[in-house]
């Protein structure tokens, strides 16, 4: 409620108050009968509270100050139509302190008003004047909206509209003219059709409408101003929830050394925009291994991507793209993707990378060098447990040499993984060099066997090159 106070120029001393002095306060309203840093003006024998539209209320705050050194009882009463004490004062005013109270003026008919405010037996004449203005009521109601009243439009879905009807009416005996009706504030709009200025005769009325169309799921506030009188408009935008989103792998087969990708389709076209994150975590199933750094998104931050959903979209973008690629690394375990969208509980999808045999087919070379043979593999062991090797050499006719396989039990892999797994996961390159006595060109092929905890792999015969 707005507090207004006017002070007439004539100020008379209030000797009967002894050590009490009465002030009228003016300033910015901070609530019911409350002002922020008010200006205080000493009150005389008469005080005008101003001109007020019929049905409106103006509130005036008084402050009684005790300049003496003892506490003084305070008695306040009011008599007269249209006036009422809103917030009564405390019964006593402590020394060097003040007590406040408020008086409301609410005219109901077009007339001049007066009342006597009695403060400890001393009278102050309060004067007020009713103005002939059009009253504002909600459609379907007969109760005029008081000055500063709040009109709520309720909760409205984003993109939808709620219309509120208003009526300008005249209960005075004379005609009134409304020259301005304005609506301000995002989301609120005056519906076209009201012709201004509008002359409204006694007993007549003029309807108009205000629309509320929220664009986001947030609270809204606006103002309806009819000539010099304002009313508060409020509404709440209701954002529809984001449609259900799903994490979809391009390949659902969990395996090491893969480049996979993720899309996030939506259950339906989204009616709202939204953002979120897609994060990746990896839990190795290999004892003593904490992570595999190759398991990462191939663009943006290593294991976190921004997810965005546009209005009308049927799938989310990830890092600004329709999909995001990632690597599955070379360590057995479980990759967990967590999608977190605004106002939705997180959802998780996992991709299990099972322990695998060591592949000896992709990057294998066998070459002759003077006096020796080199056999090299570039591959991975996602169990980090390789321990046994066996090599069998063949002549040019693919017949095994008579000495049979060379078997090796080694902890070299264990040492390698202990020192390198945190940087390179389970991938490795192995070079085995074999001294040869005699003509190496008579050795045509080699096969290799390697064993890890998932089993034993035997490579096909690998031809020697030079």
């Amino acid at each position: 409620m707005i507090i207004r106070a006017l002070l007439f120029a004539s100020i008379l001393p209030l000797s009967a108050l002894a050590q009490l002095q009465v002030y009228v306060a003016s300033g910015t309203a901070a609530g019911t009968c409350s002002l922020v840093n008010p200006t205080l003006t000493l009150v005389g024998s008469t005080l005008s509270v101003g001109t007020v539209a019929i049905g409106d209320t103006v509130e005036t705050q008084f402050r009684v100050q005790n300049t003496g050194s003892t506490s003084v009882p305070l008695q306040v009463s009011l008599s007269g139509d249209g006036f009422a004490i809103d917030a009564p004062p405390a019964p006593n005013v402590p020394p060097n302190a003040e007590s406040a109270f408020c008086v409301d003026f609410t005219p109901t008919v077009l007339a001049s008003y007066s009342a006597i405010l009695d403060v400890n037996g001393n009278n102050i004449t309060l004067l007020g004047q009713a103005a002939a203005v059009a009253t504002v009521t909600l459609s379907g109601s007969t109760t005029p909206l008081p000055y500063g009243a709040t009109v709520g439009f309720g909760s409205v879905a984003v993109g939808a509209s709620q219309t509120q009807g208003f009526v300008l009416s005249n209960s005075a005996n004379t005609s009134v003219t409304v020259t301005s009706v304005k609506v301000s504030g995002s989301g609120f709009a005056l519906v076209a059709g009201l012709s201004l200025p509008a002359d409204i005769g006694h007993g007549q009325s003029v309807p108009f409408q205000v629309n509320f169309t929220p664009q986001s799921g947030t609270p809204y506030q606006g103002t309806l101003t009819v000539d010099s009188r304002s009313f508060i408009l409020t509404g709440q935008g209701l954002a529809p929830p984001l449609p259900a989103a799903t994490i979809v792998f391009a390949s659902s087969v969990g395996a090491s050394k893969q480049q996979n990708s993720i899309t996030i389709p939506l259950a339906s076209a989204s009616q709202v925009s939204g953002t979120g994150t897609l994060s990746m975590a990896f839990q190795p199933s290999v004892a003593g291994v904490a992570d595999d750094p190759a398991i990462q998104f191939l663009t943006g931050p290593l294991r976190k991507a921004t997810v965005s959903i546009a209005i009308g979209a049927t799938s989310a973008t990830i890092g600004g793209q329709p999909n995001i690629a990632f690597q599955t690394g070379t360590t057995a375990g479980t990759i967990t993707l967590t999608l977190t969208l605004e106002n939705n509980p997180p959802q998780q999808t996992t991709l299990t990378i099972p322990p695998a045999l060591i592949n000896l087919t992709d990057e294998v070379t066998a070459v002759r060098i003077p006096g020796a043979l080199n056999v090299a593999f570039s591959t991975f062991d996602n169990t980090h447990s390789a321990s046994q090797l066996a090599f069998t050499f063949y002549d040019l006719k693919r017949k095994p040499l008579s000495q049979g396989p060379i078997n090796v039990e080694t902890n070299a892999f264990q040492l390698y993984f202990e020192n390198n797994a945190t940087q390179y996961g389970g991938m490795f390159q192995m070079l085995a060099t074999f001294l040869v006595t005699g003509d190496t060109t008579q050795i045509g092929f080699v096969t290799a066997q390697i064993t890890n905890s998932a089993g034993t792999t035997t490579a096909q015969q690998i031809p020697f090159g030079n």
Partner: protein
Amino acid sequence: MTSLTTKPWTTALLFVLPVLVLPGAWAQPAITPPKLGFVEDSSRALRPVFGLAGNFVLGPSVAPKIVSQAFSGSLGLLKTDSSLAAFDSRGKLLASIDAAPGPALFAFSPGGVTALAYIISDNSLVEWRGNSFAPVAVNCQESSADTVLALAFPTPFEASLFVQRRTVQGAGALWEVHLPLSAFGTVSQNALVGVRAPLLALPSGDLVYWDADGIVVRKPDASEVHIAASLPASFSLQQMKLDWVQLTDLNGSARFAIHTALGREGFYQLPSSNPE
């Protein structure tokens, strides 16, 4: 009769059969991280790449502010805005010379130990002879309308330039121009039908270019292997190992790797992630 010693002399086997390890074998571990070569990352730093097809890890930067680079598997060349340098497989600088600004094209000999660099801005050719750079006096452009797009170093005595000849109608056909690197020999040329830039010539004789469906590897016998790929709108190609090619998105940060080995061809995305 040929026979094998029953005990190979690698470190891996040392613990089982140590008496057969030869002196010096200690210096090179038998089990190492698999190194794929070097790439230029999105911040123009030269970084080693470790990994296998489909699983890559970038190592720390070994050189900043790279304009062009290539790696043969044992030798690398890089161009900064003001220098041309050679580096080894560990990223260690071998030699460096001043060079005209701008990018360069590189080609390695089949053995991967000698190489050619073509400096585009001043139309010059420089040879890496295994231990130092030396200028090569050849005319790389018959006319200013020629644009050199790629380079090959098939023999120690010959360079091949892949040029696009402009016509009044615009970009013309691609030609492979064979240039002798000595006073002997003659210039010859042949048209490259169906090939379009960007392209890259590998020491193996493979020619890597692109079509609407992805990457094409044309073998020396003219057979072709097509590798399906979704390519950036604008890109360049650099050799990153004997049979690996880096594809650089010129409009973005994406980097890709093309495996050209026969039977193991593939197109992969290289990590361009940043730590969170």
